[in-house]
């Protein structure tokens, strides 16, 4: 490629002004322009240097290509990669074990529910699920918004403590209370039922009026145990870091 060398514009015809001098000083310090080969192309006054592409540019470009090949080989060809589905399946096992590990498969019976209600840690876990799924209608403190107040002694579809699980699982009131069997595992629903039972007798911020019939108090906890104080969300273990 034929080139000509040199700066394409000198100082103005009226002699170098201050800006021109300063610019010239910058140019000279950079030591670039004088020696750069200028191509003999010209388009509407625009010219181009024949500078080489920078070495680091080539290195990073090639590096990104090499990385990409390695990435594909690792994740899609080799036996070492894993899928995100496998990853959450493994996490699910770990988390399930972490929460329910010693308890095994829970059943919806009175002793189990009363035992869970007395378990501070399990109630804190349930509080999180309650806020995620139930608080939209029942309020985070159970006082009720357009869903019933869960803190008073009146219930529409519950006569015994073991009835709560059925309402959560299958819904109630022609779908006004949705069914949650697809959203929560059996254990999670038993745990939620215990949590809902534990809300009874707490003091919500702005309670909805009582609906349904008053029912007998829950049975006393076995062996003189006490109910966990988790009526309020803040009382639970929520809010901790990741």
């Amino acid at each position, binding site marked *: 490629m034929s080139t000509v060398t040199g700066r394409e*514009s000198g100082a103005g*015809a009226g002699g170098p002004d201050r800006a021109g001098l300063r610019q010239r000083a910058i140019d000279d310090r950079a030591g670039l322009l004088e020696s750069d080969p200028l191509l003999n192309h010209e388009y*509407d*006054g625009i010219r181009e240097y024949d*500078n080489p592409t*920078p070495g680091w540019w080539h290195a990073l*470009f090639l590096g990104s290509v090499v990385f*990409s090949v390695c990435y594909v080989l690792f994740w899609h060809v080799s036996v070492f990669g894993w899928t995100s589905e496998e990853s959450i399946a493994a996490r699910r096992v770990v988390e399930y074990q972490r929460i329910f590990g010693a308890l095994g498969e829970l059943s919806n019976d009175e002793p189990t529910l009363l035992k869970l209600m007395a378990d501070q840690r399990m109630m804190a876990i349930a509080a999180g699920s309650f806020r995620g799924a139930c608080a939209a209608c029942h309020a985070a403190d159970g006082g009720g918004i357009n869903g019933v107040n869960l803190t008073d002694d009146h219930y529409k579809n519950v006569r015994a403590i073991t009835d709560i699980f059925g309402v959560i699982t299958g819904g109630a009131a022609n779908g*006004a209370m949705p069914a949650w069997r*697809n959203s929560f595992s059996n254990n999670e629903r038993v745990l939620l039922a215990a949590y809902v039972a534990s809300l009874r007798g707490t003091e919500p911020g702005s309670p909805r009026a009582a609906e349904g019939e008053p029912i007998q108090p829950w049975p006393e906890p076995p062996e003189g145990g006490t109910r966990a104080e988790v009526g309020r969300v803040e009382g639970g273990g929520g809010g901790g870091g990741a």
Partner: protein
Amino acid sequence: MAPVGSSVTGIGHGQPQRTGLEGSDAGPAPHALAGDALPGMDAFEYDDAIVRKFVLATIVWGAVAFLVGLVIAVQLAWPAANLGLEWFSFGRLRPLHTNAAIFAFAGNSIFAAIYYSTQRLCRARMFSDALSRLHFWGWQGVIVSAALTLPMGVTQAKEYAELEWPIDLAIAVVWVGFFGVNFFGTLMRRRERHMYVALWFYIATIVTVAVLHVFNNLWVPLAAVELLNGRVPSGADWLKSWPIYAGVQDAFMQWWYGHNAVAFFLTTPFLGLMYYFLPKAAEKPVYSYRLSIVHFWSLVFIYIWAGPHHLHYTALPAWASTLGMIFSLMLWMPSWGGMINGLLTLRGAWGKVTSDPILKFFVVGVTFYGMSTFEGPVLSIKSVNALTHYTDWTIAHVHGGALGWNGFMTFGMLYWLMPRLFQAPLWSGRLMGLHFWVATLGILLYVGSIYTAGLTQGLMWRAFDQTGALAYPEFIETVTVLIPMYWIRVVGGALYLAGMVMLIVNAAMTYRSRPARYARRVQHALPLSAAYADPPRPRSRLDANIGAARWLDSAVVSGWFHRVWERKPARFTVLTTAAVVVASLFEIVPTFLIRSNVPSIASVQPYTPLELIGRDIYIAEGCYNCHSQMIRPLWADVKRYSEQHSLPGESVYDRPFQWGSRRIGPDLAREGGRQSHDWQVSHLENPRSLVAESIMPSYAHLLEQDLNFDSIKGRVQAMALLGVPYGPAVKGDNAKTMALEQASRLGGELAQQGRHSGLEGKKVIALLAYLQRLGTDVFKPAPEEPAGEAGAPDKGANP
């Protein structure tokens, strides 16, 4: 202080003999200077009137786009700003903002740049003045029709491709028939043998945008189905259409389009703009011709693959997602090639940058380009994307690009053009300088606050407490914390708009001092001679005895082959098209052909007729602007939304797909059955009655407006035409009967649950039917009999 940049006054640059007002201020060129007529030269004039028109349109639509952006920014911080008007709600206005910013502001800006520079780089007037005018008025017509239809809820619900089919047709005609023909006609009539790099980028822009637009906008219009069946469509039904693609394929096509709209509408034409206007304003040669060759071709070939990075962890097959990621990483250096060439062109001109706001705009614009094209590859890394996707981080990223790169390159160009086009000194260099600082501060406030918002929300979504439960299980907790950041964004946006007002004042005052008649500048140039002989291939500098190496050196490394291409616009265009199309086909063909990409799920059945029209209401309201329908196989998503993440087979009847790109509200993929009918309807009527701090607009109008049951039949028939197994639902008036039945059943259930009654005939009932169906099919048993009864009303929807 140094004197104000010479281009402020529009008069010469230290060389008094050059006025800067000339059509062609040629440097020490082998060509004759403008004005010197030699024997055999053609005499012609550049068409600057068309550039003035596009400049005016850029300014007007820019102000509109920024203003609408400001309005929707306020709406997110303060929902009362939705004013309770259905056409003024966020979901309707957000597409108006994006379309105005991209197609009206940036669009007119690149047209101004292309019409000004192409004529000069080709030493020829545009091919046809008539086509220039048709292009201008046609494009403004498209913009006005977009501004009228989008707030009315007429939308295809695919981002940046929202405009309905008649407007799509108009865009194709204007882009290809008027603009494309005019541009390539000019290339054919050029008087400059070689095409400068700016023209390469314009070629890539015109060809690729045409391909993207056509293939992402293949649809079946409702009107066609109605007319084929001997019915006359009513009202807005004339404008309704559905894409021929569904679910995974539709998502793939949309983001192939969406990403490359960014590439070939907001990047390549602006690189062309940069390559012309930046060396002009700096009066410096471009840093490296070789770099421009390498980065042009690598950019054009690699960009087109990167679309799937918008769909990481979705139901898109993993191989496509991987291609999207690795090609995004490989795109980093090709993109930076443009930045390097821009910034290093300013070597020796930095003194001038300190005093010339035009160069300041260009420097900051190119810097934002560099930052955005570094950030893009980072965001495309899957594990980074898992955090940032669906958050405001993406919004901050695009605004760094749009406000910084597209906006500032446009402003620099406009200020450089004003004295030349209006043939009068710029009214105020100080106001231009103020615009620069105010707009820069505006961008920093915008992206600073919104990056913070995105990172905050992304981290909150995936925060767990020590029990392993979500630390912020209520979605609204992760919204209210963002509100202060949203107010800072409002301030940033207002500053950016204020800068635009300064530009308007400056432009208007400069225009006022234009001469009574614009001076005509006759150009002279020799026509290209047909007898031109290509220079011979240079001798290789290699002594090696390998012929192939010597040939490579002499033909390729020397740049000789590319000089040949630069002389041949048709060949150059074909090669560019091939680069883009071949790369696209590598991804598109497998996406459509590999059956295992979308394993079918027997229990996933077509929407009922009522749900189908409810879905169209969901689309018209723009719900997809704030709600995704895609639970990713990520622990945080699964914990928050459903044990079962979204599967590819679940969206096979989704035309268009509704996976969304931002969760301003929660994901709705498994919304069906999650709330009662009463909750859903009350929430639509007034979200804040149930979620006190909700920022969702009210949709009370859906409880008042009647549902047009007569238009259901055509919708079902259109779906059947696209292969959806509707069975008996398509026959006679079955669709309408089924819809009425389901509406009456749902209305009854709704009335039993609460205070809403008599809504059977209203739009809300169809939307409710759709919402309660969402994501429920996977949990159902597979149907006993095959597809025949598919369209029957779903009795299991509400257990």
